[in-house]
């Protein structure tokens, strides 16, 4: 399962890319991302509820 762990860690490449986003669109765009991402588990739960296995 370290493989899965490593694959998940690859997502950290977005951090340097966010420097470009911050410089182009302002820090507000970057700051809103954690709020948007925190809705993902809720969305996953709701999708799972509508399509029970």
């Amino acid at each position, binding site marked *: *399962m*370290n*493989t*899965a*762990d*490593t*694959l*998940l*860690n*690859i*997502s*950290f*490449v*977005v*951090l*340097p890319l*966010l*420097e470009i986003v*911050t*410089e182009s669109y302002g*820090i507000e765009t*970057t*700051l809103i*991302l*954690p709020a948007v*991402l*925190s809705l*993902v*588990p809720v969305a*996953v*739960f709701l*999708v*799972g*509820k509508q399509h*029970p*296995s």
Partner: protein
Amino acid sequence: MRRADGSEIVAIIIVVSASSYMMAIYILKTILPFIAFGLGASDILVARILYIGFIMFIFVPPIAGYLSDVMGYRKTIAVATIAESALILAYNLATNYSELLIIRVLQAFFGTVLSASFLHVSSIYARKTGVYIGYLRFAQAMGMALGSLIVALFPGFTEETLIIIATILCLAPLLSILLGEIEESEVKVRRSYVFRYVLRRDLLYYYLCALANIVSISIMFSYVVSYMIEQYRLTRQIYATILFLATTIFGMSSIVASKLCDRAPRGKWPARIYRHSAKHIHNPDIRRLRGSYSRTYTI
């Protein structure tokens, strides 16, 4: 009074060394943005200093695993501990942003090697000695909280003094060398099987949640922190207090989360969440995955 037997001493060593190490890292983490701002860095440059630790997690854990296999866990931990402690001390020598960046890259590299090897050894010994894994996470989180608390409680301490305290505490993983080399039974698994297993479609919901979690946390601990300190002119003491409260809540919730995860297949609402988000949550491999991704907090 009952005398402590061997396993209790081992459990104490694990908990003390893990929490002391986390304390060192969190003293550093609390003062690092202030050191960078003090050297004239902008908020993006401060964010860069902070997110380097996360970047190291992309490629260093496999290197740490390889080194641990080749050199053994004890040697890897010893070398990484001494190197990271020396590099933490070197923060006191940085006179400009470039020097700070170089020290940060090296410290984060050895820190990731150390945390990958050391926390793996801690988890194995915790299982062997019957320390509930949630309590090990709790000890780590309490170390994080205490690190920030020291900074909050002693505003009179200079950054140099705090760096020296962090350097001493960072040597704690050397205690784990007393535990002896761990022996893991080598299981030969084909690489193609591993990828097929990991990239299963039914894990997609789990990955989505985990990705959202680790990306949002890494943004919080880099861009949000640097913006917050600059925008609201937070003092070191206020920032340390915020970090203390956040890590304390994280520590307490890690025990609750571990207990809920253990009950998930049988419980009511946790079962509903996990049936839809990770159908194979009862699989011991997935348990290991869940525990390991909280490691992203450590650097």
